[in-house]
């Protein structure tokens, strides 16, 4: 009888320890915004088939052979406003060689505000402000701003969470070359 009680105690103890270990090692409590939940990195960049604010057709596919930074932003998002000069600097630095471009995709915004945003802050690249289409789910965007670096083969090689800096983009391009 004593031996059986001991066996039951051991089994219950092992199960309890296993459950506690599972709970402790699970990432339930971590902040999803701080942790990368994205599964897009390493995959072919999801298609963005839209018309930009200039009325030109835009396809991610058309950028094969060049680096492309897909930037999700909103005119009402303060960190997006803060990162904008960095995007302009990055775009300007690669304008001559043409080896890298930016596309900005507006999130929960209106085309009028987006056009005004670029008129005030500069930026000579394709801007998608088509409020009928939503590409943020395809890219698994969680918060703004978020940017995805697509290599010349069309693969997403890095995700930038929060405001991006020109030097960071260059570093990731060099790392993934």
């Amino acid at each position, binding site marked *: 009888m004593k031996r059986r009680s001991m066996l*039951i105690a051991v*089994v219950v103890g092992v*199960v309890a320890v*296993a*459950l506690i270990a*599972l709970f402790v090692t699970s*990432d339930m409590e971590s902040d*999803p*915004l701080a942790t990368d*939940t*994205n*599964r*897009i990195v390493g995959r072919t960049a999801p298609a963005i088939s839209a018309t930009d604010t200039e009325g030109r057709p835009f396809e991610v596919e058309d950028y094969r052979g060049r680096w492309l930074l897909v930037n999700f932003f909103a005119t009402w998002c303060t960190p997006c406003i803060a990162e904008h000069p960095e995007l302009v600097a990055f775009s300007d630095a690669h304008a001559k060689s043409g080896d890298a471009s930016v596309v900005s995709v507006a*999130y*929960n915004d209106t085309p009028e505000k987006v056009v005004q945003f670029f008129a005030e802050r500069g930026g000579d690249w394709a801007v998608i402000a088509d409020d009928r289409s*939503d590409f*943020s*789910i*395809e*890219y*698994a*965007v*969680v*918060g703004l701003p978020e940017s995805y670096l697509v290599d010349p083969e069309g693969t997403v090689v890095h995700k930038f969470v929060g405001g991006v800096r020109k030097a960071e983009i260059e570093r990731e391009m060099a790392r993934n070359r």
Partner: protein
Amino acid sequence: MTAGQRRVGWAAMLVAVVVLVLLGARTPPTSGTSDDRLYALAGQMKCLQCAGESVAGSQADIAVKMREEIRSQMREGRSDDEILSFFADRYGQRVLLNPSSEGVASLVWIVPVVAAGLGVVGLGLAFAAWRRQRGDAASEGATDEDQALVAAALRGSPDV
């Protein structure tokens, strides 16, 4: 309480359990484009911008967008599994509130069932052991002398 009353009590309890199980097992629709289905699916997904809220209960931008996407996929005739997989494929398993039934996470589903099963078996064995002990004690406890006394008492003997 008589044996009959006890049986009626057990039967009433069984009926109550069956009714509760049937009520609990009532599932939301798994096809169509109803709000019931939309919110049932959204309720199975975590709002990644919020703390402790599902996509069904949140008004955060991402939750609103995810509900729009769910509705769009419902209109396209996708199944519940296909819709949940679509989100898990992009945001990872963490977006699902119900743990996966694969890999280490499957322990969350398996352990309670195994523990409940072991508990029932253990109780059954314990009850059987107690009943056996009580039977042994009862048969050991009555000596010939005791039995003679009982027999005499039943006969109404003046010796008792």
